[in-house]
């Protein structure tokens, strides 16, 4: 009797997994904040509306940056926009975030950042002092990332139509010959490395808004990730399958995207995932899982098993990578699913983010 029931249960779960594996459709009647959260609604928008409309094989690869080759020169091209609120927060500001966010998309595609364009949408009434501070932040971050700002544009909109300022960027980088990365390249046995503690950026923004009455010394982790990627490519180039920075939707969303893209399962050991005590505390109070909180300077790397140790050493030696750890492994079954072994000894699914716990964090 008990077996019959569990047969039925697994059959139903099978049907659900089939439905889940299908390409998501965009069926909503209007845009809600969920569509920008990096979770399921975002996926339905990208995979259900944008990708089919533009029918580009490069876009279909769903990498952080698109691959373009011109006369044997292999480039990576990416674009990003930044609407973070507040403009300045502990550990960074919108300008610094714009540069780092863009160069990191290039780095995740295995490309050395070369140049950026910058488009500013300014709200009528924005103080010149604020603008100047952001321009300085952009210049400093670009210098640090060794990327030049090569073109720009400015628009001003009426008061109330942009929250201070929005920044849009384009980034171009040169794909490194040591890298052969793709979201669908993961194979069972691959190790999952994480470059450090998670959840600082999202938590810092949340607390900086001052709406929660919580105070803690938490700073955004925004930084350029190319130096760490550079080191990784040196140490484990051929064994490196895919890199992804864990921005909106956090580590959980990134792992889910890649599990689906490669048709593999992943098992993550919760106890191995590093979280700063202050972040863990804030997340506990707010009922948010740190695995879903955004980062701006952390990434996951998927590495073939025999390269894993060297890759981890290289990560730990890179700036901002001292806390790098192995958090889990790629498995075969159930395809497209991410499972967590809880620190308590149980096991559960870690699905994509639904809804939006925290809008406008980048």
């Amino acid at each position, binding site marked *: 009797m008990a077996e019959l029931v569990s047969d039925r249960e697994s059959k139903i779960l099978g049907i*659900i997994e089939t439905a889940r594996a299908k390409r998501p459709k965009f069926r909503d009647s209007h845009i809600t904040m969920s569509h920008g959260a990096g979770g*399921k609604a975002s996926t339905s928008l990208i995979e259900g509306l944008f990708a089919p409309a533009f029918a580009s094989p490069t876009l279909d690869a769903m990498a952080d940056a698109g691959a373009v080759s011109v006369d044997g020169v292999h480039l990576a091209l990416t674009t990003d926009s930044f609407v973070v609120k507040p403009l300045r927060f502990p550990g960074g500001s919108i300008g610094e975030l714009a540069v780092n966010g863009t160069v990191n998309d290039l780095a995740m595609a295995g490309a050395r950042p070369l140049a950026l364009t910058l488009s500013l949408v300014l709200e009528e009434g924005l103080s010149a002092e604020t603008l100047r501070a952001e321009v300085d932040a952009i210049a400093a971050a670009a210098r640090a990332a060794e990327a030049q700002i090569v073109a720009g544009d400015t628009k001003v909109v009426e008061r109330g139509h942009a929250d201070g300022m929005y920044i849009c960027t384009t980034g171009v980088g040169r794909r490194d010959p040591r890298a052969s990365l793709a979201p669908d390249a993961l194979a069972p046995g691959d190790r999952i490395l994480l470059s450090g503690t998670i959840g600082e950026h999202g938590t810092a923004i949340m607390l900086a808004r001052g709406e929660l009455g919580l105070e803690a010394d938490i700073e955004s982790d925004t930084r350029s990730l190319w130096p760490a990627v550079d080191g990784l490519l040196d140490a484990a180039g051929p064994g490196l399958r895919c890199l992804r920075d864990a921005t909106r939707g956090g580590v959980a969303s990134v792992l889910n995207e890649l599990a689906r893209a490669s048709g593999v399962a992943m098992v993550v050991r919760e106890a191995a995932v590093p979280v700063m005590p202050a972040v863990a*505390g804030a997340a*506990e109070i707010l009922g948010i899982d740190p695995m879903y909180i955004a980062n701006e300077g952390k990434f996951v790397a998927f590495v073939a098993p025999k390269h894993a140790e060297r890759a981890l050493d290289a990560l730990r030696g890179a700036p901002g990578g001292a806390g790098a750890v192995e958090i889990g492994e790629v498995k075969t079954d159930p395809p497209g699913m991410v*499972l967590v072994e*809880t*620190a308590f*000894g*149980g096991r559960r699914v870690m699905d994509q983010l639904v*809804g939006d716990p925290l809008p406008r964090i980048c």
Partner: protein
Amino acid sequence: MKFVDEFRDAELGRALAGEILAALEPGRHYKIMEVCGGHTHSIYKYGVDDLLPANVELVHGPGCPVCVIPMGRVDDGISLAHEPGVIFTCFGDMVRVPGSNQSLLDAKAQGADVRIVYSPLDALRIAKQNPDLEIVFFAIGFETTAPSTALTLRRAKAEHVGNFSVMCSHVTIVPPLRALLESPDLRLDGFIGPGHVATVVGARPFQFLPDQYGKPVAISGFEPLDLLQSVLMVLRQLADGRAEVENQYARVVPWEGNVRALEIMNEVFALRPHFEWRGLGFISQSALRLSDEYAEWDAELRFSVPGVRVADPKACQCGEVLKGVIKPWECKVFGTACTPERPIGTCMVSPEGACAAYYNYGRFAREREVA
């Protein structure tokens, strides 16, 4: 994290699991209901049921405050949110709950000013900052959250904040439990009592479970070790042939409850003669309205709300899930037509809902041994 990690110790968990195994009668199947949605969430989040033998089945009870709000009531909230000059405030879980046509999140996208707050006091603050607008707080929850609404109303009254009102949908835990126990298709061996509610009302109100229905109860905390220990307490009562209210969560729950919280609730609220529960139908004296003394702050009196009763969607079996008659996956629409991103029933909306918890966390639990 201090005072948290101690209650999540895997080694102690395994030791408790061993004691649970020893307390079982071989071959017997046990059904224990955890009443509170917070427990359901913890059970899945930590994989607590993976540590239980397969013949100890945890049944998810009606204690998720978001899940029990009927559709018509959500529609009333949305209608208020669409009123010109209104800022509609509510807890985050509530914005995605489907009404008959849309959710509060959809209403927001259409221009309604819907804001998520973490506390009713935040809503009162918004009211003071926006004296020209009307601020409505959608108050939901069991006795756990009712005192904070009551306190906010007392403050609104003391400070004469006239542009603030509350759409009171607070519910009480004992009437639905009674309704469940009267339901003929239910078979439960015992209860994990709701620790947060008991923090306010005390352990005493649950005495009717052993006294009138012969069911053992352990009031439980929310950490994985709390839950395992509570399961063990219930199983030991069953093994000894006892039925009583035991307080596992004694570090927080006093037998008599929080007297001051109960006093202020008495002042601010009055019992509604009846209230509709999602999936459970009308249950008499199961919800709170604002008392006459606070009628001035009652959003349902200040504005006209449609108050139209909307039948639960036919395909949705939230009622059976809430009663523990079926498991979430046994519902006809579970995971296919009804998913966390497109919920049909409320059990799929809140992370505390049995269906959402099972969908999000429970589908690939470990294989369990039968004792």
